[in-house]
């Protein structure tokens, strides 16, 4: 059993999706519980990925491949987990999207991958999202965090509109707002009333954890 969990962790560490799925399957067959596969295999592997990233040995593609391998296993385990899960523990829920008039998705997608790997539940609104949709989604899903991406000097104003709308709807205090995008700055985030600004995806994940006191 130990060997199987170890191999699953190694498969995550090397970002090998097929191997991860195989070892998870083997684990189930030999009677290991899904939650144990997660805590003793997936999480162990992912923690090591995080360490390797921190110390500079791993780069974004290593993270993305590991996250994809992890997602594939989680998806495979999902139906079995439903039966097993009895904890009242609820995953952190993040609504995220790129503002209206802006079609850039890559930065947002990296953030999503990393947040998923950190075990958060993501509601991805996509790109070119009208401000009202952000606010509606926060309300409908009871989101803990709202991530707003804007990549152009012409579209960053939309971020302010969304925050203003949250205030107007009385939702601002209920959700932490983090903004991202190449033309932004800390100063901008403060000015528009966001809780945090992140210069890149890694910083974004850290700041979200800090905002929720998870760090």
């Amino acid at each position: 059993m130990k060997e199987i969990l170890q191999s699953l962790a190694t498969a995550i560490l090397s970002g090998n999706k097929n191997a991860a799925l195989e070892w998870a399957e083997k684990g189930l067959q030999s009677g290991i519980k899904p939650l144990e596969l997660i805590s003793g295999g997936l999480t162990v592997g992912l923690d090591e990925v995080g360490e390797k990233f921190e110390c500079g040995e791993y780069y974004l593609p290593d993270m993305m491949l590991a996250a994809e391998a992890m997602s594939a296993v989680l998806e495979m385990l999902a139906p079995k987990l439903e039966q097993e899960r009895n904890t009242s523990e609820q995953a952190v829920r993040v609504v995220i999207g790129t503002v209206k008039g802006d079609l850039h998705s890559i930065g947002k997608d990296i953030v999503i991958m990393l947040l998923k790997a950190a075990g958060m539940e993501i509601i991805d609104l996509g790109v070119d999202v009208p401000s009202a949709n952000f606010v509606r989604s926060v309300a409908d899903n009871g989101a803990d965090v709202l991530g707003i991406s804007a990549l152009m000097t012409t579209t960053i104003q939309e971020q302010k509109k969304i925050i203003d709308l949250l205030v107007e709807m009385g939702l601002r205090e209920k959700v932490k707002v983090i903004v991202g995008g190449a033309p932004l700055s800390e100063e901008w985030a403060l000015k528009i009333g966001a809780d945090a600004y992140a210069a890149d995806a890694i910083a974004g994940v850290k700041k979200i954890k800090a905002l929720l006191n998870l760090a």
Partner: protein
Amino acid sequence: MWFEPLSEKDLHLIHDLTLKILQETGAVVEGCEARQILMSAGCLEDDRRLLFPPRLVEDCLAHKVAVTLYGVDESIVLPLTEAPRSYTHNFGSVSVLLDPADNRIREAMLQDLIDFVRISDTLSHPDMVVPSLRPTDLPEEIASLAMTAYTIQNTNKPVDIGTASDRWEISYLIRIAAAIRGSVQKLVEKPIGTLSISPLSPLNFPADITEAIIESARSGLPITMLPCPTRGLTAPVTLAGGLVQQNAEQLAFLVLARLINKDTPLVYTCRLAGANMRTGCVSGRDPDIGYSGACAAQLARYYGLPSGVYGLDTGSAQPDLQSGYERAIGGLYPVLAGATLVSGIGALNAGLLASAEQLVIDDQIYAMIMHRQKGIAVTEEVIGAEVVNAVMRGGHFLAQEHTRNYMRKGEIFTGTLGNESPYEQWRATGSVTIREQAREKIRQLLAEHPGVLVSATVSHEIEVILEEARFERSG
């Protein structure tokens, strides 16, 4: 004579694989009109993507169109197609600048944009003035239009008419630029610049973008085709792979523009960048910026198109040593490769931060990079063997007509910035740094600039157009 990083075989393989991608994968094309135009020319529909038959691409490429830009003052001419040299321009649309007064960053204001334009107007480089700053005190709904409006009133040089994101903006940008010449027809005859349009990478032309391309191509004005793929994020991580995808984006753009108006002047403009693989941001200290620009310049020449590439670039947030060496490496390759337009003047932080000091220093950097772009002439007259003979028989090089003559012709570079005094003398004259020199030059250039360069009538006409645009957008 140019530095050519790609062999004939490389060029053919890049071309063939580009055609294969366009034929088998195609590009996402949205907007009914663009889809209709492309499909009636033979493109096949595969979901949101359109597949481009190689024959169609080859036919559109075969039609050659010369590109010539003129200054706002039409006596300035930039013959891009047969350019025997590179022309320079600044970066565009940054809303944050490094204030020379306190070395802090702050939001750009309209007066900053005007100052940047006037400084650029007076320096030798840039040859073409791009609205560098996106002022935050302009009404947001017409900011792009106003940037162009204030740029063209403060320089005599050719400009970037604007980076447009939809059809409406294009129509207003054309009207604003036409105010300079008196009519759209005269503007098309002697264009004061290009319209820039950026599709998304990989291979994605959203409806607003195709409509902007259609509107621009119909006008007959030159278009800067401006995809901005990032290796490892929105394009293959290898430089060769990035070049092929970027080439496919260029050729898909070209096909659409040529089908609308076969005589559309087009500039093959490449912004292929590398990513920081830890942050996922575009890297400003990527030594491949210049090299990929050199490759792209060669590809453009292969197709008979003028090229536009990155040149000066840096990751640094200061006009410092890092900025200096990164700019030198980024600028040299494309200039030696004979790229038609090279960019980057005045930008720090991978184009996210503007600096007037850097703008002034870049004039000098480009002057030095351009100094030997055309190589050296090797003739008996230039070599001057008889001068050696004369000096050896009791003369002095300084007293030779040959020396004075060729010194005046630029054989010896004479820059205006930078120190070369010995240490003691440098100390004795106030230990002036390059940035202090730059700040002094900024003051001097702004004091010398005559101000608004167009007539009161033209100025008024431009204001009326802006007012109309604002009314339309807010109403």
